[in-house]
């Protein structure tokens, strides 16, 4: 067999195979992003920023200009670049901890300012790089290193509904969706629309991707897939949550 799997043109072949764990969802999200960049023909306009945590492993993933930042700080770095050079297309790539915990103030503020950037947030329900601690997105009852008896909603709250929050606080023009690595074709469509929204100058665009972490979930292939497809979707609804366009006015 000499058939090579089709990889996006904007992928950096020198750094493949990638550095993520076997079964990790990052590769699928980055494949969807790579395909969207290829289809839109924007490889020379994109600046890709990656956060701390597993997402930092993508610092040399693409043949696009890339900057790896600090934990939670990718949103302001990309915001700073976009404000200084609006001709660029800024993509901030982060995990759930980076977006919903340590960098939550940046996500909220960039969203309310309707920054013309695209944030892609990978939700795998825990902190992967640091060894599987409880994250804002950890499911009720889910065991992690810092919730060894299962997440107790009474004392630690409920999982963050990120896209729902972003949709609620963004002005008109924003694009918000939640995709999943269990449906890469749909996820690519969401990411593409998010980038098109930035290209049109409409406003903030945000895609959360439900993803997998068999290493820290301690799951085999079958259970990994069940977790992302069945358990996570019970709490995190997949689909478009906000699309640009005029809203129906009250009383009409």
């Amino acid at each position, binding site marked *: 067999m000499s058939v090579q799997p089709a990889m996006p043109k904007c992928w950096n072949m020198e750094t493949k195979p990638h550095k993520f764990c076997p079964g990790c969802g990052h590769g699928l999200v980055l494949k969807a992003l790579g395909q969207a960049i290829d289809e839109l023909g924007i490889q020379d306009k994109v600046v890709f920023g990656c956060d701390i945590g597993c997402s930092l492993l993508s610092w040399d993933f693409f043949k696009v200009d890339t*900057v790896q930042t600090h934990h939670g700080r990718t949103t302001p770095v990309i915001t700073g670049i976009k404000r200084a050079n609006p001709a660029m297309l800024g993509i901030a790539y982060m995990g759930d901890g980076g977006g919903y915990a340590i960098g939550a103030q*940046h996500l909220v503020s960039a969203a309310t300012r309707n920054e013309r950037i695209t944030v892609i947030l990978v939700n795998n329900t825990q902190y992967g790089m640091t060894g599987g601690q409880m994250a804002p997105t950890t499911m009720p009852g889910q065991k992690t290193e810092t919730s060894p008896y299962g997440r107790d909603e009474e004392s630690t709250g409920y999982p963050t509904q990120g896209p729902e929050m972003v949709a609620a606080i963004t002005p008109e023009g924003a694009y918000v969706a939640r995709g999943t690595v269990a449906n890469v074709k749909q996820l690519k469509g969401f990411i593409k629309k998010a980038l098109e929204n930035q290209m049109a100058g409409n406003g903030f665009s945000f895609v959360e991707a439900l993803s997998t972490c068999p290493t820290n979930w301690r799951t085999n292939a079958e259970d990994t897939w069940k977790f992302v497809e069945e358990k996570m979707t019970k709490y995190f609804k997949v689909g478009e949550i906000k699309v640009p366009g005029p809203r129906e006015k009250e009383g009409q």
Partner: protein
Amino acid sequence: MPEKPIQGEKRVFMTGNEVIAWAALAANADIMYGYPITPQNEIMHYWTRMIPKYNRKFLQTEDELSAGFTTVGGVLAGRRAFTATAGPGNTLMQEPMSMAEAMRLPVVVVVQQRGGPSTATVIYSQQEVTMTTLGGNGEGLRVVYSTATHQELYDYTIKAFNTAWKYRFPTFVLGDGYQAKMRESLTMYDPADRGIEMVATEPYVGKPGMPGVDRDPTHLRNTYNVEEELYEVLEQYLADYAKAAPEIAEYEAFDTDDAELVVISHGVVSRAGKAAVQELRQAGYKVGYFRPITLRPLPVDQLREVANKAKQFLVVESANGQLDRLVKEATFGCPVEMLPLFKPGVGITTEEVVARVKEIKG
């Protein structure tokens, strides 16, 4: 093309914060990112009022972490970008500045020191010396200019952009609440009229051409896999810093040749130090004056030369020995006796310095 902000020489009387906004305009700064904190607010106030005419930009961020990291972004885009902060804001600013150090990003930060620790006072101090020179997790690979007059605020704000972009180390203008808020006379000028050429900027991301085809893609990181990989990078940075240090270091001194006691001070306190030494000289005391203008890097050779001649150093500062620690390290092994006049978070007058010297000399 918008007209130049300053045409010819212009004698003015204004607050230090206003001076900094004008200097940044004259230096062709493209964009400021900032978050409100006293006593630096008026830098943003004047900047935002003036920029429409000169086609510059401003973004008010959600905090100083964001102000620092967006400034980093502005620099990555190849713009002359700056921010300003103080006190607890400077504490938050240390995280983005450690990234600027790690990636050699020419970020410019103006710090108007206020009282500490914590919220303390919004008024004045020299208590942000340790943090501004050595803050963040790292090795203090940065440049810090400590200004004493409004003329210097103007001169060194312009210079900070050139030092940053020439050597690619984050660069600070370290002022304080007194300098921020008081009015003083100075001469503003267009840098080109004084033969000052602004060092050209260049983008780190978004260069022309297709990445991976016409040029290599930019892959910037501050993460390393193994110790040796980091060590190799830091060795180069430290070598670059050591080479640049004597070129960057600046100081002001007089009457040190025959001085038995030399008053060491920096920033606005050096005005009291200078006046005290002049007064004491007239009264027959063998005293000298030394003031590092760069606190990082320090003018180590010049300081050691003085420390090898004088018997005593009187270190005067509005902090509990933050300058003193830097001076002690720089003059380690020199046979000079170190004496303190520390008033943390409080201003120091000429009379107090004179009285302290007379007390020492009996």
